[in-house]
């Protein structure tokens, strides 16, 4: 059976960062990802990142994926692309499935960086072909160069909804409107302003109540909502669209963590059920770590920092404490703290604070 010090599940920004740090510190690392290509959802992010230089500000997500992958490939880290983790045995062995075969991998520490899945929304005909997640639309147009439709209704005005709307227009697709149930726009003003300048209506206090179509989306019915988010039916109107794009949040992909038996907690601010974790990204089981969206929905910059913390801590657990590992942990924690003090960081900060209140009792 193949053996490793640190197994990292997921090759997105969190997993790549964790693998890079742990490998640099001298641990034997194995990175597993179900895609053929590393980078996770960074590969479809054509927009430039914000923040400081250290967080790749001014660099496009897809370029960050390449930078991280090159950094990792230069290290003696085993990479298993096109491989899914399909089981966990005895808390020490992962079952892996690739197209060709099943294998096993014994680890000392596990870092789960599986990311998140897109949420659907409750409305009539929400299962019609042509109702797509915002990430799906991004994948289709930015990775494969295929237009998902000709005229799109975007649901949700958070940063994802706003950015993807702009990217749709860049791909030559019309955005009929962005609807947002809250009375205000959810994402950054700068993204909303770009859309407003192009004449895209951003309809706050509005919701989607029905998709029209028999075999695929041919239109949508939207209406305004009152302050309790109840649809005001008399305001309903039809939009002629062939695609409905949902940008209504994400849910952590916690299946593997559930299976480890670590303590799980429900924290709405973090996107649902997450594995309880401390500041070192350690779960209630001392050799199981997590990083990125699976630990609470945030963004790629925080995912990379969480990955660094988890990678350094796991390496120190296997190899013994070192000055270098402590330095990475201290620096990354400070940067995480700074980002979460920003205008859009309170939600995650509040969620993470809730975790501190429900710390498991020492065994």
């Amino acid at each position, binding site marked *: 059976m193949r053996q490793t010090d640190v197994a990292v599940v997921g090759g997105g920004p969190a997993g790549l960062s964790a693998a890079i740090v742990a490998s640099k510190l001298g641990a034997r690392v194995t990175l597993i990802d*179900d*895609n*053929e290509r590393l980078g996770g*959802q960074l590969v479809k992010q*054509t927009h430039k990142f914000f923040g400081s230089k250290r967080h790749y500000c001014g660099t*496009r997500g897809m370029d960050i994926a390449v930078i991280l992958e090159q950094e990792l490939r230069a290290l003696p880290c085993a990479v298993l692309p096109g491989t899914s983790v399909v089981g966990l045995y005895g808390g020490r062995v992962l079952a892996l499935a690739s197209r060709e075969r099943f294998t096993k991998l014994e680890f000392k520490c596990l870092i789960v960086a599986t990311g998140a*899945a*897109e949420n*659907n929304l409750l409305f009539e005909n929400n*299962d*019609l*072909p*042509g*109702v*797509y*997640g915002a*990430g*799906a*639309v991004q*994948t*289709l*147009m*930015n*990775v*494969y*160069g*295929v*237009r*998902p439709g*000709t*005229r799109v209704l975007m649901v949700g005005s958070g940063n994802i909804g706003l950015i993807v709307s702009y990217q749709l*227009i*860049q*791909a*030559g697709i*019309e*955005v*009929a409107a962005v609807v947002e149930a809250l009375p205000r726009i959810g994402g950054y003003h700068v993204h909303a302003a770009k859309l407003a*300048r*192009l*004449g*895209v*209506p951003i309809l706050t206090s509005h919701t989607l109540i029905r998709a029209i179509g*028999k*075999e*695929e989306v041919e239109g949508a019915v939207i209406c305004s909502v009152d302050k309790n988010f109840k649809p005001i039916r008399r*305001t*309903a*109107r039809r939009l002629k669209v062939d695609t409905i794009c949902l940008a209504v949040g994400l849910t952590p*992909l916690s299946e593997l963590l559930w299976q480890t038996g670590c303590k799980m907690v429900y924290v709405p601010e973090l996107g649902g059920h997450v594995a309880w974790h401390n500041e070192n990204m350690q779960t209630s089981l001392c050799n199981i770590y997590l990083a990125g969206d699976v630990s609470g929905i945030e963004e790629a910059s925080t995912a990379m920092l969480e990955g660094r913390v988890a990678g350094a801590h796991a390496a120190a657990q296997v190899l013994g404490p070192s000055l270098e590992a402590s330095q990475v942990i201290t620096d990354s924690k400070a940067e995480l703290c700074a980002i979460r003090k920003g205008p859009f960081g309170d939600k995650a900060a509040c969620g993470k604070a809730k975790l501190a209140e429900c710390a498991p009792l020492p065994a």
Partner: protein
Amino acid sequence: MPERTSRPRNKGQRTKDKVLGRRIDRHPILAFEDRDPVSFSFEGRTMTGRQGETIAAALAANGVRLFRHAEKTGRPRGFFCAVGKCASCLMVVDGRPNTMVCMEPLREGAKVERQTGRGKLP
């Protein structure tokens, strides 16, 4: 309810009369270099996709959105997440049912069919 006309709508966007293909040929940021064509069949019809893309992307580029019919309700389904998480895009590929086509690379000569319900094992 009538459309509001107080300000011009979608003024910076391309107008409808310019009919665009499903493949993005011009883009301000991305360059999609010419990839080799890959021939495959969908429900007996011959279609062309591109090297390096998934079956789901090739179908979308050919205007196919209906991938299967749900088991209990018979309702039409297409892909939803496109990254292998939601299982909405299961199809029969080369006779193998429940193939997640948003993750499955397109191969020359692949036989792709819509799936009904759980599908039948070959």
